[in-house]
């Protein structure tokens, strides 16, 4: 269950709208924003895939200029991988049959 710290930069005139939209994601915790439209947020997801999906959705918002990751912790998944419970085997990484 990965956790990341991110800085989401919106276009300055759309900061409030972006903050409002971020509230719709239960996985996103907003910790603050500055006058330059930088938003400090924590993403807490059930899987790396969900993390990817959320970042991608935020990134594709036209009012968002950039999502910058500063910290990522996936120790739960790493532990699972180390114990062989969950291998990082993406779909279709072998030749199609």
């Amino acid at each position, binding site marked *: *269950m990965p*956790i*990341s*710290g*991110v*800085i989401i*930069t919106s276009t*300055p005139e759309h900061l409030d709208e972006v903050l409002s939209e971020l509230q719709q994601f239960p996985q996103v*915790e907003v*910790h*603050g924003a*500055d006058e*330059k*439209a*930088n938003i*400090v*947020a*924590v993403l*807490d997801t059930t899987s*790396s*895939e969900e*993390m*990817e999906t959320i*970042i*991608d959705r935020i990134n594709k918002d036209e009012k968002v*200029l*950039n999502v*910058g*990751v*500063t*910290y*990522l*912790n*996936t*120790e739960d998944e*790493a*532990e699972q*991988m*180390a114990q062989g419970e969950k*291998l*990082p*085997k*993406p*779909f*279709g*990484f*072998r*030749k*199609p049959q």
Partner: protein
Amino acid sequence: MAQSRRDFIKKAAALSAASYLGMSLPIDPRNIARANEGVIWHRGSCRLCGVGCRVELGVKDGTPMGIRGVAESRTNFGYICMKGMHFWKCMRHPDRLTKPLYRKKKTDKFQEISWDKALDIAATEFATAHKEGGGRAVAYYGSGQALTEETYFFQKIMRAGLQSNNVEGNPRLCMASAVGGYLTSFGADEPIGSYSDLEKAHCFFIVGSNTAEAHPVLFRRIMRRKLDNPDTVKVINVDPRISQTSRIADIHLQFKPGTDLALLNAMAHVIVEEKLYDEKFLKNYATFRKGKNVATSFADFKAHLAQYTPEAAAKKCGGSFTADDLRTVARWFATSKGTMSLWSMGLNQRKQGVWANNLMHNLHILTGQLLKDGADSLSLTGQPNACGGVREGGGLCHILPGHRLVVKEKLRNEVEAAWGVPAGRIPPKPGLHTMAMFSAINEAKIKAIWINCTSPVQSLPNCNLYNKGMDREDVFIVTTDIFPTLTTQKSNLVLPTSFHFEKTGVFGCTERRSQITKKAIDSPGDAMPEVWIIREWARKLAEKMNDPVITQCIVPFDGLEEDYELPMAIWNEYTQKLTAKRDNDLRGATYEVLEQMADGVQWPAPTAEYALTGGTVKKFVKGRDPMADTESKNDLPYQFYGPAHADRTLWIWHRDQADPDEIPDAEYPFYLSTGRIIDHWHTMSMTGRIPELLRANPYAYVEVNPKDAERLGIKPGDMVEVKSRRGVNQLPAKVYEGPIEGMVFVYWHDQHKDRMINKVTKDAIDPGSKEPEFKICAVQIKRLSGPQPLRPYIV
């Protein structure tokens, strides 16, 4: 209420992000300590582009578990991109190569063998090839992702051991034209300025670069600069394709592929006609050239530019911008308080790549937009160590370590003396450049080749042609890699290597900055660091060839353990003996110094004391570059001491517009251009194995301009054939107002045989840099069917 470990981690994550903004959060910083319990953070560099972001890999109980940016690093200030966030996840992937694999014939199945046997086979094959054809029959093809210690050591064994200058690497495919441009314009390779100019620039001229996707962390810095100064900072984007980078541009000049030389000349025309040049700068520092030995004058240059009126250029470029747009851009460029140009493969991967680079530098020399804060002509590197390892460490067929040319006897002798091998041991002629090397493999003139950390089967242009040679049974191929690739599939011997953070070594990024990454975790299985592999291979080679000079090449490294002592000894030999008093003087950047620095050292850095300040931010400026003082020849503040210009001036070149090698015609009516996407890296052997990245873009597609799509009846998702005179792809269509009308665009990462775009690209090369023209060729476009289910493919 008691807090859980997840609470501590979430608070640490919030504090981490807030710290980059200087924002205070009502969270106790002791949460970070609690989150870090049991975790060791190992500092190093990201390895998935040329920016050189500093990161820390979190390791818990020997397993990598997280990554964070290094806030005090002047490359990324703590930010990392999507690739950087995920790259470490492939470290423990089950596909990692863990045993040496061998097969006598390429049609046989691989068998696991011991390291002793594997190195014996490699040595026997190279010794046999050498006996038959001398140094010309053997070759090394390396990578801008190999550590400097690896590239340097490989080329030492090739040149002094096997007496072969057949030393090349994939930077030939991406940076060679930038090298040619810097040498011929400024007399010295690599940029004068640094990333720190980004925060001081008032005008950005971004040409032939999708910085937002290829160098996202630097894009973030440009974006921040623009957003903080929306009225006073201008961003100019010049590209045939509108991309993510265009989002922050004040103006985008979209031009027909291959016409940018006319565009750049027209900007010079405006600057000259409107007297926007810096007369004093020109008088003190610049001269004009038609050829290397043909000096001209400002008047000649002005006459040469007469034909490049903004009106003529706007027409030549396809008519999607006006002559006045071009005038505006030239004025912004010339008159800003500091103009910074940034480019990557759009200028380099061209048949006129060196010329395009020269024309870019011309604008900076003319306007004096150089050497002062906020002004620079900066080529963005694609790979993490193309500059450090390959350009500086002697990784191309015509250059020796320390920016020395092979053809200069005095410089060869300096290298031979440093290595303690007889004078004359290094052959006097450069070896074969990349495309000539693989042509020689097609003809089996090269009998044994070592391919390290790269996959030419997929990355060479017109790859079908060269793959035939690599299939030949009379060409022995050994590859060193961490994963199976399309190239390991054509190899006889595959040697498993340690990955980043599993070994120690130095990367040198775009801005002359060298940074160390130390071993943090063990390699899986029997994978070994390349430096150990090279030494042990050379030892066997010396025995089989009964050649004491090969032994001499490894004597300084005998008995050293491979995780730290061996790479350090190699780095010391290279920096202390071969960069001394060269323009890339790295003597001060010892491991001891590099380990103390959050973000390494920028050369020149002749002493440890100076290196500990961070090194040289601006080359050639007295008081800011120690060599500008020690090499000073007059009272002027700038001293161009680079090795290529004996007259110590900057050269402004007459370079005409010249068409690409292949332009569309009635039979092949579209331009094809290729490039990179944010989620993937090169041939996808790493990023294709990281589920998050693969899912984001599981397969390549072709971008088609909506007007072209309408004319051809292509709808989004339809399957489309992209065919050139060399090869064909079948890809889903993305109908998108990105590429200019008449041009299609395909990402080059996909390994699938139907979507591998380098089957289609052209292998024409720049006559100076020998870099292929990946960016432009002519193709047919045809709708095949409606959308089809596709699956990603990784070898």
